[in-house]
């Protein structure tokens, strides 16, 4: 009998504890999700209902009077003059961003994987020195290098206002090389030796054995690269003028003095939707990618 009530008391305590945990987590989740909800809502709502005392928090989807597609229509049909620097056509911007992200990500993966392979699996003098020289550049914050990189890209590479200048400086990084090298160290030498005996050259070993075996790290690192390129504002801002990418287009909405929230939210939604979908698809790999830098670095 006493045993039974003790059990009930414990169970009650346990339920109470879970309820508090759920409540706190739900409050946190609400704070995290509300801005995203509000962005999408405001992008589809008549501005009158998104702001001020007349804002409608949960407009019923079947009430047509709340909703409009005008904000999207406006952004996609905009034809700002290219020479004034006020370009913010979001179709152009999306295409440019996709090109930068695609080429940048693939190129960066290839170059970092190549360097990582050499540092992990090839034997040559100065290997450790090169690794140290690469890794130590991680200490330098990005802002430090912004001005000289702008100068080098503009005057040496003639990369001002074109895709070359936009993409080339981002085609390799110390973090990626280090990540690839660490992962490739775990590939057993016996596998590579066996391929050598079969007469495979080093280039073939890299492409047909090492790269496929490195898929997990390539995917994880690739996710970080896609997010990095897609969300980059500063470098495109200094190195191009007419080659507008999405983040610049968002920033231009401020510069041209448009203070209207509807179009801005539509722009934010256009920029965020692809990366949110990506995130929902690759949740697990995303978590691995985000922690990969911390655990070994």
């Amino acid at each position, binding site marked *: 009998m006493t045993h039974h009530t003790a059990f009930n008391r414990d169970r009650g305590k346990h339920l109470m504890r879970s309820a508090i945990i759920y409540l706190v987590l739900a409050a946190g989740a609400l704070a*995290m999700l509300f801005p995203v909800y509000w962005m999408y809502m405001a992008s589809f709502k008549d501005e009158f209902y998104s702001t001020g005392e007349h804002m409608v928090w949960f407009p019923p989807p079947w009430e047509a009077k709340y909703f409009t597609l005008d904000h999207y229509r406006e952004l996609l049909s905009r034809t700002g003059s290219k020479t004034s620097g006020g370009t913010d056509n979001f179709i152009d911007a999306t295409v440019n961003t996709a090109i930068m992200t695609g080429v940048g990500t693939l190129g960066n993966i290839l170059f970092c994987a190549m360097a990582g392979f050499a540092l992990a699996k090839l034997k040559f003098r100065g290997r450790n020195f090169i690794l140290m020289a690469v890794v130590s550049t991680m200490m330098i914050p990005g802002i430090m290098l912004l001005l000289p990189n702008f*100068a080098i890209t503009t005057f040496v590479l003639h990369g001002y206002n074109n895709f070359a200048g936009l993409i080339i400086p981002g085609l390799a990084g110390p973090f990626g090389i280090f990540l690839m090298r660490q992962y490739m160290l775990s590939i057993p030498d016996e596998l590579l030796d066996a391929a050598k005996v079969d007469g495979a050259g080093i280039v073939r070993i890299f492409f047909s054995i090492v790269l496929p075996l490195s898929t997990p790290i390539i995917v994880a690192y690739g996710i970080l690269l896609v997010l990095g390129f897609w969300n980059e504002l500063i470098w495109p801002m200094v190195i191009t003028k007419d080659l507008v990418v999405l983040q610049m287009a968002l920033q231009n909405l401020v510069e041209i003095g448009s203070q209207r929230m509807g179009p801005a939210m539509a722009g934010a939604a256009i920029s965020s939707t692809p990366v949110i979908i990506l995130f929902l698809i690759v949740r697990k790999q995303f978590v691995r990618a985000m922690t990969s830098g911390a655990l070994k670095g």
Partner: protein
Amino acid sequence: MKKKSQDMAGNGISAWRKREKLAAIFFLFPALLLIAVFAYASFVITVIMSFYKVDWLSEPTFVGLANFSKVLHYDLFWKSLANVSVFVIETVGFGLVAGLFFAVLMEQKIKGVGFFRVAFFMPLVISAAATAWIFRLIFGKGYGVVPVLVTQVTGWISDLTIGGYHVGHLLLSGPIVLDPLGDPRLAMTSVAAMSIWGGLGYWILIYTAGLRSIDPGLYESAMIDGAGFWRRTLYITVPLLRPVILFLSITGIIRAFQLFAILLIIPPYGGTPGGPDDSTQVPILLIYNIAFSQRDFGYASALALVIFAILLVITLIQAKVGKLSEGAP
């Protein structure tokens, strides 16, 4: 015959070594070239430029340490450091505490934790520019969710009447009109709030990885000894997470100094980045303006180097303190 095959094998090995060297050059070349140019050469150029007056239009002139003394005598530079310090304290302080708090909660055995993970990690993928726009809509004076709610709630309180007595005005003289982005006292904190929203998931993620590396046996034996949840957290979790906390605070400070995109988006119509009243002015904005608006690249480089030195010193001190406290019992 036997001898010949041995020779061949020997030649094969040395030939392979040679090929391996050539291959190493081939595989390293693209990435190393990029790093040599965009990190090493870049760094050297920054150092050199900081001793010159450079505007890319006329011949650079050597000015010695003038750029550095200009930085140290620039009032706005010190103000920007103070602003960024406020931002660092708010974001790193909140991240360290709330990150651990939510990480611990999500590691409890509860159902539906996947949903909470999605909710907390989603802001990580949203760009700073989009974040800034969203929070303009949330924080905007007179139209944003937060000021509108504050005005409504404080309005009710100040109108509060109990039993015919108007007691509300004893608490509040009237509704409060909040201007999170336009009030110099609030602006930097509002920016910190946006940044925390965008980054909290990262702190949780890193803490979670740290929590999972702790031996569960430690908790079990502590529970047998009768240690409650808080004691376990304070005496087992926090000390064992010391390296994680160190990592998070160093990278948190470095990331805080890179704050930039949000500041470009939030100024209201007619305002400039860094406002109101220079309350959100930060070093990187100064570097950007000096370089690209005033075209004084030498001065901007000197400023960048000073910031680099500050970050380096902070990192070294933190690493040292971390090592020392790790050795302590």
